């Protein structure tokens, strides 16, 4: 089973996606779990490394990010389906960036992200999860590898 990524690796993957395509800064890691009422997406991956990646983002930050990503100036014009679609795409990009940073020797297959609108049960022990401040909310990312 691969080693869980270091906090810096998670942060670097998040920053790459958020700053390049979402025009949003990722600040320091903050204590606590995923934000209340967060929009969460789960993405199973396979190939050389099997596991699941999770990303949970606070509702206000999700709306703001979706508006920026879609080029919509008025956040109120963004519907829940669009927010969900953007959260899934962000999850896809962060997971790809993270796995690519964890070694280039093995290819991986990303499954379509599944959206969880309500607070889901936390993952089993062993899931490496970190929460980062976004200024107008927070984002929690976690990854878990299956035992080989």
């Amino acid at each position, binding site marked *: 089973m691969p080693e869980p990524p270091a906090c810096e690796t998670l942060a670097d993957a998040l920053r790459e996606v958020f700053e390049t395509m979402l025009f949003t800064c990722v600040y320091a890691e903050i204590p606590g779990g995923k934000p209340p009422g967060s929009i969460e997406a789960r993405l199973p991956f396979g190939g050389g490394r099997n596991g699941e990646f999770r990303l949970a983002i606070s509702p206000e930050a999700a709306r703001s990010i979706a508006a920026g990503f879609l080029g919509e100036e008025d956040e109120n014009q963004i519907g829940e389906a669009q927010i969900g679609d953007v959260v899934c795409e962000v999850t896809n990009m962060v997971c790809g960036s993270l796995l690519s940073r964890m070694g280039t020797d093995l290819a991986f297959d990303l499954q*379509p992200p599944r959206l969880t609108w309500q607070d889901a049960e936390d993952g089993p022990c062993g899931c490496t999860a970190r929460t980062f401040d976004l200024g107008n909310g927070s984002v929690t990312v976690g990854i878990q590898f299956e035992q080989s």
Partner: protein
Amino acid sequence: MAFRVLIADDSPAMRLVIRRVIQLSGFAVDSFVEAADGEQALCVLRRQAVDVVLTDINMPNMNGEQLMIALQTDGKLKTLPVVVVSTDATRHRIDRMLDLGARGYITKPFQPEALREELERVLGVTHA
């Protein structure tokens, strides 16, 4: 010259972003066509001419790899330039897609100018 671009990606948000990025970059586009997976892309390509295809890899029904194989076995479509736009930045995947006939590869997330430059390179466009 303006180009006809097909975008194949299962995420409507990503298709919209790619369209917007290309338009804002100043790349000359005649028209966009969209497909939610490789199967739809193939269907569109068999009835409508385009100049370049931008495709994701991880898509339902027919993924980007299967789309490349289908294009390579189609006499009329095998020379169509394809640029892969994927989150997978592993050397293994990039080599695999290029081996299957993709002319370009760009990883998500991408800078807007990187997408334009890749399109220009693949289409042999000299930027004024």
